[in-house]
């Protein structure tokens, strides 16, 4: 370990050395304002440009790492891996694309699900990995999502999902289209059970993911300036043959048109989502005779199921 690395806080150090999702080097350039930024400072700022507040794209695992309390995390559905049911081949085989993405990201597929804590409140949280085939939704993403919902249902703990996806995964054809129905149906059960689901849309959330799980939050949140929509801007431009309005399909546009509840800065995400969840679940605690785990975050001690995660808090 170099003398410099010793100065970097442990949490950041392990992240930077094991999961290098950003270009190597000490400096990064903000894709929005062009400012040259000190890499470590950018990471401390959760990949938000300190100069212009542009929210850089961030990989799924790092996002959950930032969002959840350290330690006491248990991954759900990690044993699932994608297959190639159609023997799909375009210029490349789907199998080869999968291997390439798996090597590049260190993940088996584009969604990561973790049960953990948000400021002491037990939750299930999932995050898309846009770097894995554009965060596209195929069988594994759908199944992991359903398992996230089922864990929320079983434990009656809130579900918080960060979307970043180009949509359904073409290489799994109709099977991936049907993941839209599958994930939405699971959410209908969660909704009927009165367990909160907060959907946080990040840049970009498009197509089949936007037209299913992402838009079905009890509360729909977006990060600033994220591209969110059904059809891609290029397709729309070609169809209607006119210039798209300024800021079209960005978070602020969606807020103005009533599609989302609020826009939250990534640096406030933990505090604000925690507060929202307390507000939603607190209402349930007034129900006499019903002692919900949701309403008592202070009793959220690690359960036995979490022991293995406790042993290796850096596992995530």
């Amino acid at each position, binding site marked *: 370990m170099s003398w410099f690395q010793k100065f970097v806080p442990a949490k950041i150090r392990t992240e930077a050395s094991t999961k290098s999702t950003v270009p190597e080097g000490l400096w990064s350039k903000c894709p929005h304002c062009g400012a040259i930024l000190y890499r470590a400072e950018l990471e401390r700022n959760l990949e938000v440009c300190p100069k212009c507040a542009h929210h850089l794209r961030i990989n799924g695992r790092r996002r959950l790492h930032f969002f959840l309390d350290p330690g006491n995390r248990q991954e759900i559905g*990690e*044993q699932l891996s994608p297959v190639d049911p159609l023997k799909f081949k375009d210029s490349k085989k789907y199998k080869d694309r999968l291997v390439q993405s798996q090597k590049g990201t260190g993940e088996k597929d584009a969604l990561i699900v973790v049960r953990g804590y948000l400021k002491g409140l037990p939750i299930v949280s999932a995050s898309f990995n846009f770097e894995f085939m554009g965060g596209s939704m195929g069988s594994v993403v759908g199944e992991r999502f359903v398992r996230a919902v089922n864990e929320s249902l079983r434990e009656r703990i809130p579900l918080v999902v960060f979307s970043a996806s180009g949509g359904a995964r073409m290489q799994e054809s*109709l*099977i991936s289209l049907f993941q839209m129905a599958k994930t939405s149906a699971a959410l209908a059960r969660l909704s009927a059970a009165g367990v909160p689901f907060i959907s946080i849309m990040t840049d970009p959330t498009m197509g*089949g993911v936007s*037209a299913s799980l*992402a838009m079905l939050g009890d509360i729909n949140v977006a990060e600033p300036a994220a591209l969110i*929509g059904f059809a891609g801007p290029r397709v*729309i431009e070609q169809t209607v043959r006119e210039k798209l309005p300024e800021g*079209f399909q960005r978070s602020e546009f969606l807020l103005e048109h009533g599609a989302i509840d609020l826009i939250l800065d990534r640096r406030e995400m933990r505090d604000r989502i925690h507060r929202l969840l307390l507000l939603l679940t607190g209402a349930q605690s007034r129900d006499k005779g019903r002692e919900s785990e949701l309403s008592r975050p202070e009793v959220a001690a690690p359960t036995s199921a979490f022991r293995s995660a406790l042993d290796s808090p850096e596992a995530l």
Partner: protein
Amino acid sequence: MDLNFLDFEQPIAELVAKIEELKRVGFDNEINISEEIARLEEKSRKLTESVFTSLTAWQISRLSRHPLRPFTLDYVEMLFDDFEELHGDRSFADDPAIVGGVARIDDRPVLILGHQKGRDTKEKILRNFGMPRPEGYRKALRLMRLAERFRLPIFCFIDTPGAYPGIGAEERGQSEAIARNLFEMSRLRVPIICTVIGEGGSGGALAIGVGDRLLMLQYSTYSVISPEGCASILWKSAEKAELAAEAMGITAPRLLELGLIDELIPEPLGGAHRNPPQMATLLRDALLRHLYDVERESIDCLMDQRYDRLMRYGVYEEGAN
């Protein structure tokens, strides 16, 4: 070239033209050429059979969009009685790209929903080529809730290139409208029987396609993206649509094999548009058979089955960690 025939059907078109001509001649003259006509008709039938036994996915995709193919309202007319079309989403507009209403089949009151394409240019524009906007999906949901309230089973007919990719559609929440329908249809407490009658175009098709049964006509297609769209993304050229159609496995036999649909309904020789009444009879039989089949279950049981069915979608490997 006869525009009512696709390029791969041109040899059939030529024979048909010849037969027509002979019939005209025969009508004008006293010469008996009925034998010759019968011989040619038999030849045309054999030719059609041979062309249609080895169709590629791309050819089927083109058949599914055939301009003469029966649309939702054609089947409504042929299969149902007392149809009363109901309009509007109650908050913004009536979207003519989706039609819905109450009707009777086998004397049973039911609700019908379907995408609707246009026949001539004027109607095509009115129907937006069968591409719904959010208000179309919201109308559909409103009518489905009506059906639930009055315990009417629902028949959905799918035939769309996809949900409309437009500025207004995005402003009014195309994504949310589709997502909401998927969410609600998964738990709607009446039987839902969906049939792809032409083009099953992605999320725009699925948004009225969640139910207890999924049937497909023999020459319909159902896919996550159009072959052209897939080709332009993965092959960087819409010209490769033929390859994309093949790779995505969008045809009824392939989807039946993959276990994604319940039944393939055979079409008359040459496709549904060559003999709509015969198609209607075949479709009617299948619809009633499935309706009575699902109705044997209690509604609670049916709801569980629908949920399990949705949860089974997906192919993956589950390894030890």
